[in-house]
């Protein structure tokens, strides 16, 4: 009913499913197979942790939370909690039999507060009660006396006090100071980049079930089952082999269930151990938002020197991550922000410094891009600033600064950027999106429209693929072939919606040339595939796909050997096609052949293992090759803003992403679209607000606004770069897709700035901290208007 103005006649159904896949077989690698769980999901039949039938005697957990940002606990009176209806057990840290610290890499995260609290919402004690509501009501009855300590609630304050969770680090190439000084132009600036709530639709949840030998079975919504296993074992003081963690699927993760799922599993396990009853711990949405870490807010600054073309000659960048109260993964996250301070551009002489600021807020954590996006924002700001300074289109500045041939191909951490295709991606996209014509049309529109202004921007992304902690770049898988020819697949990766199980099943099916529907994926279970890495860093398919392929190849080789022996043929005479096995003249269905192999006592089960080659990095010198390869892409967004209110809308977005040889184009496109919209949300409406006491005010979806359906670009065109196999030997020469497109959302932010810049005839690059809420957009407009007058 809202009056509609058609902005463009093209519908999003024009989204191209371009793919450059040559070797398409029955297994379906390269085909847009539907998500393995799609039919169940639409029917409400897919089971998430909270949907599991409740276990006999199951109790529900809740925790009492700190009301102070930083304080000593002087006394704790839990008598009313214990006496509350339905309460069976109340525990504090004194009741923990094993480790009390559950920090994933470095210590600093007490499972329950130890004498002091460091953020509002920190769990202090835990309750098991007969119902979810009763547990939640009981924890409000505690009387806790605090002695307030001075709290640090801003990055500036943390920097002034050198309050860090980990020591600062620097990456350096050449002599940036003198390069900047010698350059014809210099600019400097700063930006505040907001954090982001994961807002996975399924909140954190774990169920712990005591087993007969003092062990524990855990059902959890976690990206890192092996770590949950380890931490549960440690808090209970039992060996790892007594803890089994089962993870079938998550209702979204995005990094928010990498380390942040473990505390609730540990607390459920502690309560289950105490009561000898199963305990479920599900966080209500508000508790989830208050008690779990988010994307790190950053405050960055730069000084750049550049020439008349706008090419950077030298730059100093400082990135300051707000890590919250504990290290968690912040060392690696701020590292990644530093690694990605160049985004797609050759910085020449560069110094990048990273600080890990300790604040009295929840501990910030992994989130899609893992610091990379926050790092890139600075350099994209620099691109816009140089462009306005020189009176050029920001796109021209982005182009002249791209990594190039020898001499312009080394990063500030001394990795050579190989196989760089961004120039090609950008020019293709510039043309397919009609950038130049639209740029002209927008200029005209802005001259004629007094209140509404349009803006457009094209921004690239280059994202390094691999865990920067080298040991995590490994994966295991387990494949069984049964006597009816069906296949069971387990791997160390977790399914959170990204389609990992579907892709890995396609890879296994491809190996045997059987229908992908005959491959069943199961939960990620620590008793099937041990010592797994988190499903993170976009590495899920790269690592687990290779491991599963290895397992399948081992079984396949056994089948070939068996065929050769039995039918006196050579290996070349054995082939797998169309769910059949051809042995010389003989043809068998895959099922028949599996049965025969079984009767001949051939093992039809195998593990597989993979580790990423080539990578190394020395943190002390800041040099190495942390990334196996780079994933690249670019996007163009057009926006319209209201200069009286700051309201805006994204009208059109075009994306071209390099995913190598896509294993599943539909899944890849889904990842790109979803990541883009999430990235756009991060930079626009998703505003985390803490008050002066350190309390999170945006603690529910009524006050924290992720993009809704009307916020997605009205005209949304996504294409995969055709004929672009990964030049590194990844699984089917595909490229990772989970994180890289997240940062394509930067084109919306830059387009907003373009629209704002029109107010002052594109002479000034507006300062626009993120999220660029309507309020911030209005202030930026007003600042430029005032500039114009002054």
């Amino acid at each position, binding site marked *: *009913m*809202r*009056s509609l103005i058609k*902005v463009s006649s093209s*519908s*999003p159904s024009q*989204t191209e499913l371009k793919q450059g896949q040559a070797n398409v077989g029955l297994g379906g690698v390269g085909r*847009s197979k*539907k*998500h393995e*769980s799609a039919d*169940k*999901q*639409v*029917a*409400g039949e*897919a089971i*998430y942790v909270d*949907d599991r039938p409740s276990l006999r005697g199951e109790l529900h957990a809740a925790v009492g939370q700190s009301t102070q940002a930083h304080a000593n606990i002087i006394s704790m009176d839990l008598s009313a909690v214990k006496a509350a209806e339905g309460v069976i057990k109340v525990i504090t840290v004194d009741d923990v039999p094993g480790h009390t610290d559950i920090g994933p890499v470095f210590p600093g995260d007490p499972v329950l507060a130890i004498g002091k609290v460091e953020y509002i919402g920190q769990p202090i004690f835990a309750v098991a009660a007969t119902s979810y509501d009763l547990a*939640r009501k009981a924890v*409000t009855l505690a009387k806790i006396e605090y002695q307030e300590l001075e709290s640090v609630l801003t990055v500036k304050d943390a920097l002034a006090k050198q309050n860090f969770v980990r020591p600062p680090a620097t990456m350096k190439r050449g002599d940036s100071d003198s390069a900047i000084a010698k350059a014809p132009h210099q600019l400097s600036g700063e930006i505040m980049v907001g954090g982001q709530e994961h*807002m996975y*639709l*399924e909140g954190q949840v774990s169920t712990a079930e005591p087993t007969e030998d003092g062990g524990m079975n855990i059902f959890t919504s976690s990206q890192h089952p092996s770590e949950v296993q380890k931490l549960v074992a440690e808090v209970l003081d039992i060996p790892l082999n007594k803890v089994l963690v089962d993870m079938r*699927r*998550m*209702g*979204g*993760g995005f990094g928010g269930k990498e380390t942040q799922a473990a505390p609730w599993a540990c607390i459920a396990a502690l309560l289950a151990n105490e009561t000898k009853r199963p305990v479920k711990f599900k966080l*209500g*949405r508000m508790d989830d938002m208050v008690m779990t870490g988010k994307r790190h807010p950053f405050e960055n600054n730069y000084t750049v020197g550049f020439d008349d073309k706008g090419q950077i000659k030298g730059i100093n960048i400082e990135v300051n991550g707000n890590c919250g109260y504990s290290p968690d993964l912040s060392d690696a996250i701020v590292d990644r922000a530093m690694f990605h301070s160049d985004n797609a551009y050759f910085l020449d002489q560069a110094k990048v410094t990273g600080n890990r600021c300790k604040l009295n807020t929840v501990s910030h954590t992994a989130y899609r891009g893992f610091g990379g996006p926050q790092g890139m924002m600075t350099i994209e700001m620099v691109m816009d600033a140089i462009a306005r300074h020189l009176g050029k289109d920001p796109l021209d500045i982005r182009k002249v600064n791209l990594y190039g041939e020898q001499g312009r191909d080394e990063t500030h951490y001394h990795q050579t950027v190989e196989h760089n295709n961004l120039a090609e991606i950008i020019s293709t996209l510039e043309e397919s999106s009609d950038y130049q014509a639209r740029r002209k049309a927008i200029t005209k529109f802005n001259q004629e*429209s*007094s*209140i*509404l202004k349009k803006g457009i921007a094209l921004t690239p992304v280059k994202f390094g693929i691999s865990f920067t902690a080298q040991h995590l770049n490994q994966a295991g898988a387990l494949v069984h072939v049964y006597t009816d020819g069906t296949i069971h697949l387990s791997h160390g990766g977790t399914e959170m*919606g990204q389609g990992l199980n579907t892709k890995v099943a396609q890879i296994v099916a491809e190996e045997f040339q059987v229908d992908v529907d005959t491959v069943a994926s199961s939960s990620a279970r620590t008793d099937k595939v041990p010592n797994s890495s988190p499903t993170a860093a976009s590495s899920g398919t790269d690592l687990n796909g290779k491991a599963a392929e290895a397992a399948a190849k081992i079984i396949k080789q056994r089948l070939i050997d068996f065929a050769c022996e039995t039918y006196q043929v050579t290996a070349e005479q054995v082939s797998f096609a169309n769910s059949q096995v051809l042995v010389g003249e003989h043809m068998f269905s895959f099922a028949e052949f599996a049965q025969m192999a079984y009767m001949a006592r051939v093992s039809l089960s195998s593990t597989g293992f993979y580790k990423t080659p080539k990578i190394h990095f020395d943190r002390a010198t800041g040099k190495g090759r942390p990334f196996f390869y780079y994933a690249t892409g670019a996007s163009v967004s057009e926006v319209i803003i*209201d200069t*009286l209110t*700051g*309201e805006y*809308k994204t009208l059109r977005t075009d994306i071209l992403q390099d995913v190598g040889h896509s294993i599943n184009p539909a899944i890849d496109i*889904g990842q790109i*679209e*979803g990541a883009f919209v*999430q990235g756009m949300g991060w930079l626009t*409406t998703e505003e985390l607000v803490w008050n002066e006491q350190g309390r999170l005010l*945006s603690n*529910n979806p009524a*006050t924290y*606004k992720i993009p*809704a*359906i*009307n*916020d*997605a670009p*009205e005209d*949304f065109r996504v294409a995969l770069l055709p004929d672009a196999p990964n030049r590194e030997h990844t699984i089917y020469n595909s490229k990772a897709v989970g994180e890289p497109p997240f940062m394509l959302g930067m084109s919306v932010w830059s387009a907003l700035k373009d629209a704002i810049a029109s107010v002052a005839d594109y002479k000034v690059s507006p300062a626009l901290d993120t999220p660029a809420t309507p*309020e911030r957009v*209005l*202030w930026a407009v007003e600042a430029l208007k005032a500039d114009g007058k002054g």
Partner: protein
Amino acid sequence: MKTSKVRFLLNNDDVVIENIDPNLTVLQYLREIQFKSGTKEGCASGDCGACTVVLAELDENKPDQLNYKSINSCITFVGSLHGKQLITVEDLKDGAKLHHAQQTIVDNHGSQCGFCTPGFVMSSFALHKHNQTPSRSDVLEALAGNLCRCTGYRSIIEAAITANKSTEQDSFAQHYQQTLCKLIELQKLPKPALSGNNHDFISPKNIAELAYELTSEPNSTLVAGGTDLALSVTQNLATIDKLVYVGNVKELTNMTETEAEIIIGSALPYSKFIDTLHHYYPELGDMIERIGSKQVRNTGTLGGNVGNASPIGDMPPALIALGASMTLHLNGEERTILVEDYFVDYKKTVLKPSEFIKSIQIPKPVTGQTLKLYKISKRIDDDISAVLAAFFIEQDGGGKITNVRLAFGGMAGIPKRASATEQALQGKSLNKESVAEAKLALATDFQPMSDVRASDKYRMTVAQNLIEKCYLELQNKTIETRVMNYA
């Protein structure tokens, strides 16, 4: 002897519930009592749509017709199911065959983690039950209350746009007559009620019964859509002793028109009067379409929006600007006051104990009058306003302002008129000078607050700019001033 029963259809099954705490939501009922876990909890506050289910109910005007509406089960009290058919995502499959609303999501790769998916399926199902060939904007309107964190929505939009006549023959269509008959039977039953855990729910059927309940038990809490009240239970862990549900009160759930007025029953959901208001006041219709989401508008009411005197409700400023009145009822006695006079202070009203809002009367437009409405929020859809501005202006032939009411939400503890600003405009023509004066005057009318949605400074600046915008729009009817229209 009270019967204390609530009866409804769970898909095709007759269900009688008794001895259940009426503070229970439909979502809890489904998941914990019926062990149907297909419907998901994403927030328990009405904001995400993961819990969306569909209610089929008899059309009040066409008794042989069923209306299908999507609702948020997480903020709907179980007692309000009485006399309705509750349809959940598990009910859509016909044997092994997925419903159109499900199959299209699979075909378009519209589910990733799948947690939002049952909600989208149900919103899409409800849409298709009314409209088999929905346009893109129909789809956006129907799905704006369903959040998806994974897909970026494009695939879901395409799925929902896919037209299909098969909904005409789905299992619900096949059982249509049977469902209709059963619901008609349920309607005939006496006053539904529910008691459990020492809490009560009662659903009077007419105004006399309602007045009686409220006067005999002054501790009762009125509930209409529950989209506001239920949050106190799911989010603030409150329990309500006695719920008096107004959704079945005949006199409160209708809409009538006289020559001069539109009279809207206080318990009539937004979706039932939005078209009428859009007809008379297009900008009002457009604004209401941005109140909450389809699910919220399908249950939320004017009585609930005005009743609790929230400073950020969107309807009060609009109603005040329009000079709307409201009729209050106390044990047989009725009085009619201006909506403007209803609000006393932050969350304080002139409503007396046991009194309730019966209806709201909105004057019909007359030539020379203009209504301008602006809802300013961080996100376009399903977001509480930082500022809501409602401008009602009457001009004579020469353009001189003869009557003006400027009402704002979000600028003070209550929805309030900007009297100094009105004064600055009264009797003047709209021009640069008068608008500049009005903007200055606004700063004396309000001292807005800073909160999670906006700063005090933004609220004031935007409110001032909206006066200017209104002026520019009136001056030049063709100029583009709203980014919303680029939807």
